[in-house]
């Protein structure tokens, strides 16, 4: 008796469901375990390879809690069917979304996951066209008055990140225990960028510089940004402007360009 379309589609779904979660969903009875093993191994090793590449330190810390727990987390993601993107380079982003929604990681490890994903996002980001890069060099040369009223933004291949925990210290430990979380609960701020050889760098920012960059990124001209920051701190507008303009020109200069 030929199978109906519905029966055929059901076979496909059963096959995929077993690959996602072999312990819960039995393999299709007409297929030998040896042959099904090929699919189980190929699919899971390919998926976890993408996650290993992005989350290098996260996997070390998770694995240090309990051997096998990183792969168990990869498996939970795969069996939850949480990846919708057809693009292989978005798998790690889909994993991060899954971690956010399933709320199972300690906030310190979650902060590390955001950091490592941002590193990856910048690695694969589009470069700015040359004319934008050239204009980026021009704005830094303009007078203070002109600069104060310019609307600036980060280049497409640069990104600002604010996280709740001290990433630089988290990167130095090799064993993790959730009781250590309080010790690392110091907010940290970074700007990521990459050089001509496609190497990604992250520079840690002071909270003040991060706040300045966040305002600028939101389209606030530097003058208004300094005025806003003066209201929220003990520093005067003049003080902030003195340091801030120098900081924009010297440190962030190559990463900023004029808003379109």
């Amino acid at each position, binding site marked *: 008796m*030929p*199978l*109906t*379309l519905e029966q*055929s*589609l059901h*076979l*496909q*779904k*059963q*096959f*995929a*469901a077993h*690959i*996602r979660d072999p312990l819960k969903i039995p393999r*299709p009875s*007409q*297929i*030998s375990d*040896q*042959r*099904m093993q*090929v*699919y189980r191994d*190929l*699919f899971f090793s*390919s*998926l976890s390879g*993408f996650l290993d590449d992005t989350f290098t330190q996260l996997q070390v810390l998770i694995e240090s809690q309990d051997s096998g727990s990183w792969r168990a987390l990869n498996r939970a993601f*795969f069996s*939850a*069917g*949480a*990846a*919708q*993107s*057809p*693009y*292989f*380079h*978005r*798998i790690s982003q889909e994993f991060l979304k899954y971690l956010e929604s399933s709320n199972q990681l300690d906030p310190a490890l979650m902060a590390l996951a955001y950091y490592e994903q941002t590193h990856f996002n910048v*690695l*694969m*980001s*589009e*470069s700015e066209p040359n004319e934008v890069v050239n204009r980026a060099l021009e704005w830094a040369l303009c007078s203070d008055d002109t600069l104060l009223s310019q609307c600036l933004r980060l280049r*497409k*291949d640069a990104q600002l990140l604010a996280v709740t925990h001290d990433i630089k210290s988290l990167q130095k430990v090799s064993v993790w225990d959730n009781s250590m979380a309080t010790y690392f609960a110091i907010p940290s701020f970074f700007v990521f960028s*990459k050089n*001509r*050889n*496609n190497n990604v760098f992250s520079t840690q920012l002071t909270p003040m510089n991060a706040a300045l960059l966040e305002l600028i990124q939101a389209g606030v001209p530097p003058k208004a940004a300094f005025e806003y920051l003066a209201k929220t701190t003990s520093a005067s507008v003049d003080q902030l402007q003195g340091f801030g303009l120098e900081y924009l020109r010297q440190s962030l200069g190559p990463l900023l360009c004029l808003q379109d």
Partner: protein
Amino acid sequence: MSSLAASFTGVGLGIRRGLLQPITEYLDQLGEAAPAFDFFEVAPENWIGWGGQHSDTFQRLVQSYPFVSHGLSLSIGGPDPLQYNFLKDLKHFLNANQMLVYSEHLSFCTDDAGHLYDLMPIPLTQTMVDYVAQRIRRVQEYLDRRIAIENVSYYASTALELSELEFFLAVVEQADCDILLDVNNVYVNSVNHGYEPVSFIQALPSDKIVYMHIAGHYVESEKPGQELIIDTHGAAVVPLVWQLLEVAYQAHGVRPTLLERDFNYPAFKVLIDELQQIRHLQSVYSQGAACASNA
């Protein structure tokens, strides 16, 4: 299409990120001499949305060489609806980069929950022939071009109303699409499922075959009754597969032929030797065809 197809001949190499640097170094050293390849192939899913240095190199190559695209994520036989958001990006990629051919695997990689990021075997049933052929037609209509469907390697079947060959022929016929003949896959499947590879190749309609793939594989088990080969693209092409490429040229005439190598890269010279072997066979069988037509 005919003017585009005219530039699509000879020997091709599949571009992977790990091969970009050896390819550019090879081209730099080559100077004015002719390269060992005539065209490149990329997986659109690996390049859409990617920027940076790799993307710059890709753009330079796209402007200098004929390119074809070999898809991974379309899930043409999937149990879930076709993803038109993806097809929109794909259409833009194919047209913006002047891809001469777009091909996909006769398989599926999605379920109701999303993507599984690898290829699964379609149940070989009559109803799936109709279902998949209709989806191919819809994709061809949306992309406004014919697509080529590849005979996929597989390790197990969920249903076997038709043989692999019957299923493949019926889908291609009903969908009115082209064929990408993967010679290594024919060999891998012939061992894994115990059929005769030569007659499989000979039974395909010559006029539908737009190009061919050749690759290496991994022998997992040679135990009698449990023979198993994995289609890895991670090793040298074996003599039996070279022989099948000759069978394909004899049966259908010479077609553009591409070497796939996805990892475990040898010195680039080793890949060049394999590309030259393809070119050698193409020249042998082109001459044979010329002699036959003169006779």
